[in-house]
């Protein structure tokens, strides 16, 4: 992720000075017409949904390449490989959408995609002293390669697959494998007892389910969950509580009602007893000194004068 962020920052920084450096009208004119149709297709990974434009898309790019003096053969080769791997990854993702297995199934293709993108975006110069970073990633406003890649990176990070993959990206972590095994055991158990009465299932599969649940909460605390595990757990839980109805029943209503009505009764006693037994607080009135009534004051003045 840090790589992604880093490159993003770089791109942004360079993009700002771009008009000053590459501000020749030709370039803009070339990239502009290609802009509109692709923007729509590349915003979401809609490319995946309708494959027909895909070969057209690469063809189109390739055909226009020889006219572009800035693209070397090396870079176009890189771009081609990138396209292949991109397609591979996306083809892997789609069938893994439901039930979610995007991490388990596609981590290797994402790894290769990541590698090729790292190659493209590295500022090390390839053969012929050309850096493909500038020509492929930042030559136009659209920055298609970057945009497509960042879309996939978005999917990857949202699914939190990094939590289930080992550091190098070669395999699933041991935790994940262990979880999947336990999960399978639980499902096998469900499978075994699902005929007939569900209450039998509830008692017999309780221990594997409970183990699985505990394992899951442990992983939740360690933050080692990825979408595959979350989804598997969600499904199992739903099976357990909704489909097989193994949640806890509400069965101790009477004691709860008894205790709470006792508690609610206490304040009534309290207020009644304090009303009956506590002596009422009285206030002593004080008589302020006032001039005597107007009439008597008149009297005084009469008498004084």
């Amino acid at each position, binding site marked *: 992720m840090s790589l992604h962020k880093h490159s993003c920052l770089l791109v942004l920084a360079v993009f700002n000075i771009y008009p000053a450096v590459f501000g020749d009208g030709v370039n803009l004119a070339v990239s502009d017409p290609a802009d509109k149709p692709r923007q729509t297709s590349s915003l979401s990974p809609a490319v995946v949904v309708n494959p027909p434009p895909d070969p057209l898309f690469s063809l189109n790019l390739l055909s226009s390449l020889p006219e572009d003096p800035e693209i070397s053969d090396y870079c176009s080769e890189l771009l081609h490989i990138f396209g292949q791997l991109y397609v591979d990854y996306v083809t892997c993702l789609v069938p893994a959408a439901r039930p979610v297995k995007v991490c388990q199934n596609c981590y290797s293709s994402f790894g290769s995609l990541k590698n090729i993108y790292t190659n493209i975006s590295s500022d090390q110069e390839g053969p012929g002293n050309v850096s493909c970073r500038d020509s492929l990633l930042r030559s136009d406003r659209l920055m298609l390669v970057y945009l497509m890649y960042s879309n996939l990176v978005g999917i990857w990070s949202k699914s939190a697959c990094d939590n289930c993959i080992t550091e190098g990206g070669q395999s699933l972590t041991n935790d994940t494998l262990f979880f999947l095994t336990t999960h399978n055991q639980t499902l096998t158990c469900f499978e075994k007892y699902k005929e007939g009465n569900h209450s039998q299932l509830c008692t017999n599969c309780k221990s594997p389910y409970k183990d699985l649940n505990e394992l899951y909460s442990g992983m939740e605390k360690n933050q080692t969950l990825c979408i595959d595990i979350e989804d598997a757990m969600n499904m199992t839980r739903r099976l357990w509580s909704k489909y097989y109805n193994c949640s806890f029943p509400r069965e101790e209503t009477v004691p709860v009602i008894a205790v*709470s009505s006792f508690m609610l009764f206490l304040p009534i006693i309290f207020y009644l007893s304090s009303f009956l037994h506590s002596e009422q607080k009285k206030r002593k*009135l*004080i*008589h302020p000194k006032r001039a005597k009534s107007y009439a008597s004051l008149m009297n005084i003045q009469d008498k004084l004068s």
Partner: protein
Amino acid sequence: MANITKKVSWSSRADESGATGEGTPLLNGSEQPRHSRQLSEGRSIFQIGRLSTVDLEEEITSDEDSLRGRPKEIPHNEKLLSLKFESLDYDNIENQLFLEEERRMSYMGFRCLEISRWVVCGLIGFLTGLIACFIDIVVEELAGIKYQVVKQNIEKFTEAGGLSISLILWAVFNSAFVMVGAIIVAYFEPIAAGSGIPQIKCYLNGIKIPRVVRLKTLVVKVCGVICSVVGGLAVGKEGPMIHSGAVVAAGVSQGRSTSLKRDFKIFEYFRRDTEKRDFVSAGAAAGVSAAFGAPVGGVLFSLEEGASFWNQMLTWRIFFASMISTFTLNFFLSIYHNKPGDLSSPGLINFGRFESDVRNFLCVFIFCFSPLSCAGGILGALFNVLNYWLTIFRIRYVHRPCLQVMEAMLVAAVTATVSFTMIYFSNDCQPLGPEHNEEYPLQLFCADGEYNSMATAFFNTPERSVRSLFHNQPGSYNPLTLGLFTLTYFFLACWTYGLAVSAGVFIPSLLIGAAWGRLFGILLASITSNATVSIWADPGKYALIGAAAQLGGIVRMTLSLTVIMVEATGNVTYGLPIMLVLMTAKIVGDYFVEGLYDIHIKLQSVPFLHWEAPATSHWLTAREVMSSPVTCLNRIEKVGTIVDVLSNTSTNHNGFPVVVQVAGSDEPAKLCGLILRSQLIVLLKHKVFVELARSRLNQRKLQLKDFRDAYPRFPPIQSIHVSQDERECMMDLTEFMNPTPYTVPQETSLPRVFKLFRALGLRHLVVVDDQNRVIGLVTRKDLARYHLGKHGLEELQLAHT
């Protein structure tokens, strides 16, 4: 007119059978024949003829006492004025000492004073912010522990059976915390009970509430708030912040603590009521600002409550204190949350972000703000009425500390029980959100991976519940849950406010309002067609409007509350809707009953002066309003007389007009100044007698500093020993008295007197006749006793409380 009061006093026995506890309506120009008149006439001549002679005073009181018989006792009610409250001395005493000091002070001295005022305000803001931060962190930690323990317990017993034990555990936890909070409040500092806003309102109004700005009060307040919030009561920690800020201000500005017996020898100039009160208003503002993250709201709160003593420089300084306070809180909380520099929690309560896209909201709002805000006003009035009756009952019957502690514990236990029962029987299950808005999700009988949505409302600190009502996705509460929650929480909050625990009413009101506001939003969305669903969506906004309406209906604050809400929302666009809602809620609510704080101020029998005199009081003149006869002192007075006057417990006067008798003539004495009890006590303590001055010529002259050192706890007269010889000495008050007290002629109308009194922050207003002879004295209690009731102008009675 004064006859009306006499009626109550002299015919006490006949009156007892009648409607006691009701205010006596003033009968316009009453000329009813009364048997008392004959009694009074003879004596009044006697009295008024010898007005200025002091020693007559005791004679008269004893005389009157015998006439009155035993003092009349009535049950406590709202139509009383307590004797224990006095005014602050806001008026500057321009006596000779003061003038001398001013002469001595250099230009630099004044500049330094100005700078130190700023320093004090900065300190006030900083410390208030720190206290808010402390409260927040401790509450969060303790509540976290409590909810974790109870949650684990519930989880354990959901499986194994025996949930009633969890219920008892929860109730015991709550009661234990609340017991601690209630004990420290009830036994150590009863003034720290409640939100403290009424008390601070009174202080800013110019009333010296005993012990309200002591260090001990602050400690009890802070601990009490922590206990009651952790104890799960339906309370908030925001109101008490205002009180805490005020205490901090009063303490810091004095540069010493009388409770700790430490004097830092700084800020000595600020040791008088005038300066202290300015700082207290800054402290209250800093408290509001820390509580709601609303610095401007804080300034406006002080402005609204203490408006009569205001100037631009003070406003600017108060704003500074507010800003410092919210920034301090924000800064330290960001460190606590391990995100230093991410200043995202400017106040204790955080409404969270509201998007500013209110296009649809505004037009929808026009249609539905009136039912919402009317509901707010009506529910607020209901809340106030219920709380009023409850408070009366509490004052009359639940006045012993042990009973108060028990009551608080019971409320805590019942709160836990009710919450538990609601959660237990709730069938409303919601899936856990991806971002975990719920701090302590309770599963109970829900399917795995879901949580009980009633528990998000009850099993949580109220602040968090408010936030989740504002911001949770549409559909995360079902209407039945919200309805039940509103209903129970309304009664719980109403029952809780007024207990002997320190806790505020802001958050519960917001919570109630948010709940029914959201309910309204959900219902509205369900009855409108699907096509317009995007317009009616987002029940969070209705929750906000409902919260504003409910809060406005209960506390009835106007300007400051609007700004506080807008600032807490963090979006100025909501200003107009919130303002309209608050206005409507206030209008509707005022139709039924006053605001909650005003009710409590009245119930505490505080002589509170409102902005204006009662509307129909122009026919009352100063002569009817004033107290008379007045205990006056001669300019050169015998020490014995002064001591006697001061130690007279039946008349605990505070200011004495000083009169001068023209030598060699029998003309009545004329007013030449006013002297305060506190000054007299300092004079007696330093034995500033004429005879002693003659004998000891090298004696140090008394300075203003000596008066300030004794402030604010002047020793009682009993602690000053005056020997028999000294009683015969004379005291010259010329130097010390205020030579130019404010006076009014006796024909001045009540509103005129009121305006003068309120605007200048007076404590004593001398009523003189055309010969400049003292005929009466108007004090706060004389003015505050008139109020406009249902039957016209009514008069409150004075009482010992």
